[in-house]
């Protein structure tokens, strides 16, 4: 049986990992290599690293740092931030990262999705979509450039277009829930996962393993992206890199036997 994944989403800001609330209010988490080394020892399912400044500052990915991180990590790794060309994607893949994450550039120029997936396969391309409810209506609006710029794209239509262009996975972030510990916005993911035939990763609001269970069982997501709950001791407390025990994950997400 395929296990649902619990994926720490780590935000790179300059040379540090940070955690945000509603894509703002940056709290320092730690040195990227040390943090990933700890997650590696905790045998996490997968890690996603998002450089939240690269696109906004129009910078190239920090290849040196990514390479250093990858050499310590013996689990699947994905990277997003500042990727605009096939050549940049190639450089990332060559460092030992097997998935790249596109967001703003996919919206600017959707062909980038197929350009990369035709060479590296759709499993190597994740498209990340950031949404926020608009102030007056309940409609989820898509934002780019780390939640700073609103677009007119309709969510399901855009996600299906990404799928048809060759994305292997969609990552959907709720800006409203980011860093709030309020649980996932289940209806948002439920609706989209029923329309997609590729895996959907939900991100935003996880409080504990039960939030992830809710997302996977009730919104049919393939994976739960988690931030605050794996980098803080608990809500309002200090930094502590942590990850649920395999037996807890199995019991909550898989109804499966304990591992040794």
């Amino acid at each position: 049986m395929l296990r649902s994944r619990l994926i720490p989403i780590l935000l790179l800001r300059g040379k540090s990992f940070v955690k945000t609330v509603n894509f703002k209010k940056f709290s320092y988490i730690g040195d990227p290599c040390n943090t990933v080394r700890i997650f590696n020892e905790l045998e996490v399912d997968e890690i996603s690293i998002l450089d939240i400044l690269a696109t906004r500052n129009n910078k190239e990915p920090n290849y040196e740092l990514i390479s250093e991180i990858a050499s310590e990590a013996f689990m699947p790794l994905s990277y997003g931030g500042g990727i605009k060309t096939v050549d940049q994607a190639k450089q990332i893949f060559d460092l030992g990262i097997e998935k790249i994450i596109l967001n703003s550039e996919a919206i600017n120029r959707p062909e980038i999705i197929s350009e990369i997936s035709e060479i590296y396969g759709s499993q190597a391309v994740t498209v990340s979509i950031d949404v926020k409810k608009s102030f007056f209506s309940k409609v989820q609006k898509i934002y780019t450039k780390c939640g700073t710029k609103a677009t007119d794209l309709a969510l399901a239509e855009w996600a299906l277009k990404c799928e048809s262009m060759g994305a292997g996975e969609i990552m959907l972030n709720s800006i409203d829930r980011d860093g709030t510990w309020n649980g996932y916005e289940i209806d948002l993911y439920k609706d989209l996962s029923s329309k997609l035939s590729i895996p959907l990763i939900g991100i935003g609001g996880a409080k504990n393993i039960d939030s992830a269970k809710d997302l996977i069982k009730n919104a049919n997501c393939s994976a739960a992206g988690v931030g605050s709950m794996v980098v803080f001791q608990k809500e309002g407390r200090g930094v502590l890199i942590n990850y649920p025990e395999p037996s807890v994950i199995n019991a909550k997400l898989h109804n499966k036997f304990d591992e040794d």
Partner: protein
Amino acid sequence: MITIVDYEMGNPKSIMNMLSRLGIKSQLSRNLDDISQARKLILPGVGAFDAAMRNLKKFNLINSLNKKALEEKIPILGICLGMQVLTHSSEEGSEKGLGWIDAQTKKFDSSLGIKVPHMGWNYVLPKTNSPICKELNHKSRFYFVHSYYVQTNNDQNSCMKSNYSIEFDSAIQNNNIYGVQFHPEKSHKYGMQILKNFSDL
């Protein structure tokens, strides 16, 4: 020393990272002298079946690899697409595979209500008599990413089975030739055990 065949298909860097953590020396090469001197080979691979076979031809590797696999019988490990090219053919393309293991590569049927690719951690059921399965059991989990799967024609070539709507061969063997569908280099201690088992052959 393990020689990793460099035929421009996928992620050899992460395999080298894990081997180096295990203290096992490796080199990445497609130089025919390096290949002919190799004592152990890893055939990595991420991407499309036809592209992989064409690249093996383009770099003139097929004859040398056939010689190592079938005459010298050195240990060879194919990973992911590198396992699929060990079979006769794939539903993904029209090129012939290396055909070292009596098996073929088929596509997962998404009409069975599964998401394709099969992506994530899954379990294996190892056969205990294969050296590649040493120290592994039904609780061992591995990271998979693939849309096509291998089915052996002869069950004695299957060393591990996994399940994703259907049962498929997640590790295969024909004498000195091994293939694994998952990515050991991305599978924590379980993957390390596979690479260690291969290195101990």
